[in-house]
């Protein structure tokens, strides 16, 4: 079992960086310090259920129209209406499935696949491999909002606010082009033209053309300036990995080639370069040669072993 703590706010002050040197040294010397750190880190990735301000606002307006009743009863009543409505919609959907297209559009790409298309207002998207893009067509005139998992490039027609929701933060613009990469709780946004607002769990930032925002582990955002081509490189069959951790580069390789990547003795290394999306052996050479690594591709080309020379 673990030792008791010397006072009852110590860990709270530790998270705020308020400990004295002695306190900190003692805390770090504890056998359970690594566990504490891991708990604090992992807890940040708590998933929140979906929420749509637009839909909730409509509900609020509707509820405001209904004659007021005792409060508790009203909530139950509203809830039962929603259940009834949900049941009715389900029944209708079951009957109508063969006649009507569903209004919510879900676009999904598989490994090695890209997809492009046009949104109801003429804005366009290009979705990179292993991603989903979801939006509500019937609500589009009310609010331009898409939900993204994965990576996509958007060119947005001028108009009302256009929002990209991702599991770790949101990006909102008026009319511009930008790339969003949102995987595994991470988020990166590059602005190609116009202005883009990015929001994590802390202070939002505004990007101008040629700037990139990266969500840091503590929920804050950092911005850097880039030398930009007019569109992201993955458009042209090239994945650009300049300055990315090698583990992420290999994960991206796996997504482009349906490949199981096993990197032996994985360590933290940064890769400067990129790889082609249409030639697996070339891609592996591009990555392994400058990193002094060797690779062994299985005969069916579904898995690769990567190891030091």
């Amino acid at each position, binding site marked *: *079992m*673990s030792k008791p*703590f010397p006072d*009852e*706010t*110590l*860990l*709270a*002050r530790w*998270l*705020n960086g308020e400990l004295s040197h002695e306190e900190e040294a003692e805390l770090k010397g504890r056998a*359970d310090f690594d*566990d*504490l750190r*891991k*708990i*604090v880190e*992992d*807890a*940040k*990735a*708590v*998933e*929140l*259920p979906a*929420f749509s*301000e637009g839909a*909730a*606002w409509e*509900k*609020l307006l509707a*509820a*405001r129209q209904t004659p*007021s009743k005792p*409060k*508790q009863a009203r*909530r139950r009543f*509203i*809830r039962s209406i929603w259940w009834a409505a949900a049941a009715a919609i389900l029944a209708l959907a079951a009957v109508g499935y063969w006649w009507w297209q569903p209004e919510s559009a879900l676009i999904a790409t598989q490994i090695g696949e890209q997809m492009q298309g046009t949104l109801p207002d003429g804005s366009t998207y290009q979705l990179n491999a292993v991603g989903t893009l979801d939006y509500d067509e019937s609500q589009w005139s009310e609010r331009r909002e898409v939900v993204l998992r994965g990576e996509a490039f958007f060119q947005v027609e001028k108009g009302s606010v256009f929002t990209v929701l991702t*599991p770790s933060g949101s990006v909102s613009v008026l009319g511009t082009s930008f790339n969003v990469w949102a*995987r*595994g*709780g*991470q988020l990166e946004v590059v602005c190609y033209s116009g202005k883009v607002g990015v929001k994590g*769990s*802390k202070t939002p930032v505004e990007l101008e053309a040629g700037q990139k925002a990266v969500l840091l582990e*503590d*929920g804050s955002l950092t911005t850097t300036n880039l030398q930009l081509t007019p569109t992201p490189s993955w458009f042209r069959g090239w994945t650009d990995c300049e300055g990315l951790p090698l*583990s*992420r580069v*290999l*994960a991206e390789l796996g997504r482009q080639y349906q490949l199981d*990547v096993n*990197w032996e003795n*994985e360590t933290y290394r940064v890769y400067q370069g990129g790889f082609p999306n249409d030639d697996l052996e070339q891609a592996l050479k591009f990555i392994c040669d400058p990193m002094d690594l060797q690779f062994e591709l299985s005969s069916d080309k579904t898995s690769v072993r990567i190891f030091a020379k």
Partner: protein
Amino acid sequence: MAKPDQICEQSVFKELFWAYARPLRNFLYYKSGDPDLSEDLVQEAFLRMWAACEKVSYEKAKAYLFRVANNLFLDEVKHRKVVAKFQLSISKPVQHFTPQEELEENEFRARLERAIAELPEKSREVFLLNRVEGLKYREIALLLDISVKAVEKRMHKALVQLRKLSDLI
């Protein structure tokens, strides 16, 4: 910025809704672990503010909403015969693991999910408001109408308890 007595104006009210509905929903979710109940209570809190809009200034709206939502939640818990079990999930990291490490990772996450669900509500809300929502202790203190010291104590307690649950490994 709107003048104090203008929140009755629909456009101003909508602005407040857009600003605070999500933080309020998250706050209620950290308390209840129930997304439907959280949305219901968000709506109820805004309805009450609308009914009382002449008495609530723009600057006080946030504090008003959180106070009302907190009371509504306490009411709800009091009147409920069965309280839904708190549930939440933690998303997987993107890193590469060996199968063995991945197994351990998954197990640790599942354990942490359960441990968070089992925290007393007061510790849990403080812990999640700080860790997930990124609120400062001072901001949490204002929201819950308690002292900063009390927030720190709850935070410390939350971690000690979470830590104990991982002892069972």
